[in-house]
């Protein structure tokens, strides 16, 4: 009758060993062109991280949060969905997933360079914008999934959040509502060990976040988040359940943040270098590389060519973002309301006069 304080938990699902060998008898659903596409997305992410970091150091980019170390968690999950049909609701560290669903790299670069257009979504994109307010997107994901289902679409929504964000009330309220409404959502909780400087053991006493699923009457699974195949496999099953009307799943992707929290962070203040080194052995990109190399699908030469191409892609995107001038006064006022109060229009007119170098005749006028 007494539930013991800590439930004995299974090891995370792992299908691809760190040395690149597949689990006995496992035939990955992620194969052929999709697999290579996923591989490219992982490499693109690395290339983008590197490039953005150096641009930020040169003062040409704003705050940036790298994906570094979490490529398999993000790509494996997102590749279990169907572009054009399903949706991505991100936090801020899941660019590869967003790119697959219609967000463009040049938009990301606009976002990172602080331009409002970086969060404008193309009509055909099935992505919500980056979310700065931690966990606030999780209720949105549930509502989105619910609304799409009401409209007869059998879309699945995948939303991401971190071990830190999992502590917010919004995470709880959303997981619970998803259970009640059997909303077609896959919750990907990327446990990367850190919330800025806060290690996961200070975040929760739970031995696993996946264990929370039972408290909402939903499916839960603990997965090696650095294993592309395991992530894809678990998420594909979750997507199938969601699609079939069997409700949501909480996936805990055990991964590790290999770099700083973001460009303002100095992890040497709090990350034990020995621990960091240990985690390097589980690098998700390296693992897939080993696997693909062993299967003869990639080699050093082809990867070099690919990386060069990805660099060019990233550079082109950055250049495109650079070329788009930041907005003027309209960037402050457009879209705040669809039908703006007259007072806001007056404020806008005043701001336009100022921008045109005209002095305000009477400040009061702008408050109309």
């Amino acid at each position, binding site marked *: 009758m007494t539930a013991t304080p800590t439930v004995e938990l299974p090891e995370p699902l792992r299908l691809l060993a760190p040395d690149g060998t597949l689990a006995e008898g496992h035939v990955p659903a992620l194969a052929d062109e999709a697999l290579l596409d996923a591989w490219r997305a992982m490499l693109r992410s690395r290339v983008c991280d590197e490039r953005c970091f150096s641009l930020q150091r040169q003062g040409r980019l704003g705050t940036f949060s790298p994906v570094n170390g979490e490529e398999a968690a993000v790509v494996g999950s997102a590749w279990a969905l169907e572009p054009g049909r399903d949706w991505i609701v991100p936090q801020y560290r899941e660019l590869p997933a967003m790119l697959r669903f219609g967000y463009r790299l040049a938009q990301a670069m606009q976002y990172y360079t602080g331009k409002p257009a970086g*969060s*404008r979504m193309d009509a055909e994109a099935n992505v919500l*914008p980056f979310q700065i*307010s931690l966990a*606030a997107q999780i209720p949105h994901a549930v509502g989105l999934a619910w609304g799409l289902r009401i409209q007869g679409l059998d879309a699945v929504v995948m939303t991401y959040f971190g071990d830190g964000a999992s502590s917010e009330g*919004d995470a709880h309220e959303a997981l619970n*509502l998803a259970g009640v409404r059997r909303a077609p959502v896959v919750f990907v909780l990327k446990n990367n060990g850190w919330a800025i400087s806060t290690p996961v053991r200070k975040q929760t006493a739970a031995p696993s976040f996946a264990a929370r699923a039972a408290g909402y009457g939903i499916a839960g699974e603990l997965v090696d988040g650095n294993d592309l195949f395991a992530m894809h496999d678990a998420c594909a099953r979750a997507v199938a359940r969601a699609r079939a009307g069997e409700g949501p799943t909480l996936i805990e992707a055990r991964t590790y943040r290999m770099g700083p929290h973001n460009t303002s962070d100095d992890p040497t203040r709090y990350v034990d270098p020995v621990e960091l080194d240990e985690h390097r052995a589980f690098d998700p990109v390296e693992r897939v590389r080993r696997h693909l190399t062993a299967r003869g699908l990639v080699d050093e030469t082809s990867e070099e060519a690919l990386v060069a191409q990805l660099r060019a892609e990233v550079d082109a995107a950055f250049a495109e973002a650079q070329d788009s001038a930041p907005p003027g006064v309209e960037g402050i006022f457009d879209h*705040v309301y*669809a039908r703006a109060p007259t007072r806001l229009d007056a404020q806008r007119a005043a701001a336009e006069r100022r921008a045109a170098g005209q002095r305000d005749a009477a400040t009061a006028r702008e*408050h109309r």
Partner: protein
Amino acid sequence: MAEMTMIEAIRSTLGAALEADERVIVLGQDVGVNGGVFRATEGLQERFGAERVVDMPLAEAVIVGSAVGLACSGMIPIPELQFLGFGSQAFHQIEGQVARYAYRSQGSYPMPMVIRAPWGGNVRTPELHSDAHEAKYANAPGLKVVMPATARDAKGMLAEAIRDPDPVLFCEPLRGYRLIKDDVPEEDYTVPLGKARVVREGSDLVIVAYSAAVVIAERAADRAAEEGYSVGVLDLRSLVPLDVEALREAVAACGRAVVLHEGSLTAGFGGELVATIQEEAFWSLQAPIGRVAAPDAPYPRVTIEELYVPSVQRVLDAVRAAMEA
């Protein structure tokens, strides 16, 4: 025309909106089977089913937060906060998400949402149920804040708020739910947001009020009339958009004003009103603009709430003070 209470007016608009547009969905605590704790949604679940009038778990942030997602999917959600005071539990979703999602996404995801919320004092509710928080929401850019004072406006403004592409916080005065009763057209109509209503003209002074306080303003104007003062009453109807024009005209015409609200004074919406009036009609002003508001104290327990909520007498005192200044 039919005489209707405010709650009936609201119910009829909700029913009409659910009827007219498949995208409309009503969600909240106890809005379904129970028809809402004040019966604002009575009968709606029976008419439209449990998928369109939805009883939600007891969690304001996800009631509002899931409405954001519903709107992203193309729905028109009408979440209900059982009381405005519990909007604080969803404050981050309202000011940080609902209010700025259209701006954040540069128009990709508009938020045609109406958050309904009852509030207001002198109805003997437990703690936190009567709290006036409108000034906090009026300071959340991207949101509109509507505060009707009559059944007729409640019906027409709620209809307009639902059609409006921007998110609206629609505050309903508890005291008015059954007490406010007026002639309401039976047909469908809308009342625009941001157009104040001249309740009565007055050549000496104008009292500016909104929601249930409009009745207090009218009574004070009556009493002032007995003392020989011609006092007008302006019902703002909405705080955002604010009818700056109407404020200017009302004060320019008489040169004196008293602003009135139920919430506490400091950083209450009265400050905004005084500031706007003096920006717009400074040279007409013949006396300081009086503010009548609750004191800077929490809403008290019921035995003493009448000492807290601004009374007709207090408004009258302010009118006299302005007239004698």
